[in-house]
């Protein structure tokens, strides 16, 4: 792992794609600082006092929204949450219109989640504040990959030369794409483990190994990253039944035994217990770092907001 970059050079955080190892390390180092601070009595600072952060969520999310809200508040920023229903037929028009409207109110940062891949980038082209992608379609979810990386680094002490198995619904997962990009950038090896219907076409070209058999896929890996089965995004029959899915691709003790004895169990949440993960392993305090991932989420988002808003202030609001 090389040294951290001395500054974050981008106006936005739209994805892991395009970030250098140094920039990722910079965010993680800053997040590590906040992780420690968040465990102390003095959790808050006024580093972003006077800044306005708008959380614009086009998809329902309690966890991510709360995490971003808390992160902004701990930095002393003013936070507004806007949850926009996805049912509207003309949601695309609303996207640009909403962007223009919000932009006119001069926020410092927009945190955006949207159901369509590329929507956050589109919005970032229409505003002159910092834009943070909180998940766009199946494309990217950069803060999730960063919080996963921070969690891994805290336990393994490094992000290179690790074998990471990402298991489950890769096809519908932005978390998987961001994690593949980040882990490859940092020098780890990624394997994908899923039934063939949940492996997107030509994903091997992103530099991953593909396994359909979970026991083979988990063999000797350092990290087991489970994904939520996104039944709501599935059109047609990707899997025959939840029961069959759990049988072949759900993480239980027996399958986990193929991984290294100290392998970490991760999940971006919310978990479908008994679908992709057995409660017994999900709640294993020795192995599961699922709750720590949530904790690191706040720290990573604080770091990202701080770097972006400070950038934005430096360049005088010109994105």
């Amino acid at each position: 792992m090389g040294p951290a970059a001395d500054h974050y050079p981008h106006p936005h955080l739209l994805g892991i794609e395009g970030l250098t190892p140094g920039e990722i390390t910079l965010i993680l180092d800053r997040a590590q600082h906040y992780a420690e601070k968040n465990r102390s009595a003095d959790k808050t600072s006024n580093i972003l006092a006077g800044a306005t952060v708008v959380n614009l969520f086009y998809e329902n999310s309690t966890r991510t929204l709360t995490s971003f809200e808390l992160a902004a508040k701990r930095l002393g920023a003013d936070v507004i949450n806007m949850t926009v229903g996805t049912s509207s037929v003309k949601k695309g028009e609303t996207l640009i219109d909403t962007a223009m409207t919000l932009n006119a109110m001069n926020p410092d940062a927009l945190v955006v989640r949207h159901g369509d891949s590329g929507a956050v980038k589109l919005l970032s082209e229409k505003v002159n504040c910092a834009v943070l992608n909180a998940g766009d379609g199946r494309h990217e979810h950069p803060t999730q990959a960063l919080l996963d990386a921070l969690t891994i680094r805290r336990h393994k002490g490094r992000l290179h030369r690790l074998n990471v198995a990402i298991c489950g619904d890769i096809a519908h997962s932005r978390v998987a794409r961001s994690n593949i990009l980040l882990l490859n950038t940092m020098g780890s090896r990624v394997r994908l483990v899923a039934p063939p219907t949940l492996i997107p076409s030509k994903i091997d070209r992103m530099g991953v190994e593909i396994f359909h058999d979970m026991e083979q896929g988990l063999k000797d890996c350092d990290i087991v990253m489970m994904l939520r089965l996104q039944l709501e995004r599935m059109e047609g029959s990707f899997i025959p039944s939840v029961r069959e899915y759990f049988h072949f691709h759900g993480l239980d003790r027996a399958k986990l035994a193929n991984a290294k004895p100290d392998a970490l169990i991760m999940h971006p949440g919310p978990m479908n217990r008994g679908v992709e993960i057995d409660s017994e392993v999900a709640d294993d305090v020795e192995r599961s770092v699922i709750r720590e991932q949530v904790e690191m989420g706040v720290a990573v988002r604080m770091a990202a907001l701080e770097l972006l808003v400070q950038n934005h202030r430096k360049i005088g609001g010109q994105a």
Partner: protein
Amino acid sequence: MSPAIRAKGAGKKAFINARLLDPVKKTDEAGGLLIEDDTILKSGPDITESTVSEGFEVFDLGGACLAPGLVDMRAQLREPGFEHQETIETAGKSAAIGGVTTIIALPNTDPVIDDVAGVEFIARRARKVGLAKVFVYGAVSKGIAGQEITEMGLLHQAGAVAFCDGIKTIASARLLRQALSYSTFFDGMIVQHPEEPELSKGAAMNSGELATRLGLSGVSPLAEVIQIERDLRLAEMTGGRLHFAHISTGESVEVIRKAKKRGLKVTCDTAPPYFALNENAVSDYRTFAKLSPPLRSEDDRQAIVAGLADGTIDAIASDHNPQDADSKRLPFAQAAAGAVGFETLLPMALELYHNEHMSLLDVITKLTRTPAELVRIKGAGTLEEGTAADLVIFDPDRPWKIDPYQFHSKSKNSPFDGRLTQGRVLRTLIDGREVFSEGA
């Protein structure tokens, strides 16, 4: 542009010192062409300054190309029903600048062109506008709903030159079989948009590495050839004339090449994006490059070029599909597919010539004579004596940069924005009238 000038009284004109491209005689030679009023009198190498008799207004073309006006066999004019995107008048102006003098319009308007009144409406509007000659495809199925066959014979009699269901695949094997079979009695042609609908449901682009990286649903290029293979069987079974529109994959070219060898009455066309661009054009979620069928891999693009060069692909059409900015400025999955094409048709097709894949005459033939023959429009795509003086004069080498905001189409959705290209239309004539002249 002076649309007020009527054909009668346009008088006698002589175009001399031209590079004459005649797709009927199959000649590419220096020469000239004489017109009287709305009709071609004569063309050939012997028409020069010294042989032109008195009474002709003489135009020295200084070596520019003179060819039949382009015959565009696949375009959407969006009128009636979508006049905020294009009208027959704005389409006509756009076509004139592109050198297109004959348009065959798709029937997916609102209302759909599935009855005689619809065919007559378009003909009347086009006559009134007085720009490109507009013919229509009749719908294969009522309301393009894919269920019941339209009154194809009556539509044909009223002027529908062939039949298709617009941008939709004729999915029902039974419907297509019946349409192919029924239309044989008046030598009708069925045009298919070849994309297996179940496989392509919800897809926003070509499947593969890029779609996976962008997190977009992709359709396999095989969805095209799967549809073609089924339909070829139906064509064989019925003896009907079947034409595949805008083919985009190497597999499709291969299968059609074999079918032609077997002697099937099958033809196909493609559009400039499929030989001039590949799927990388949609990187960064560029919705202006979102098309249907989607842009494919570089291997597919090269196979399309090869298919054009060896004659497997019969014609080049613009696939003109105007979409307003609001339909395009959306997240990629929600954005409308399609691109305007009239004003880039000729320069993009000329790339095939400049890149030495095809001769200039072959390129022009695929833009003029072949499409006219496919849809059985006599007197279009030719320089023959006595036919209408529908002509395009162009400089094949003139470099320019494509700027959609200069387009005369009401919509500006072009995937060729900013492209440096060669070949510019200098003048377009319809029935002897000048409908476009550079600098006018």
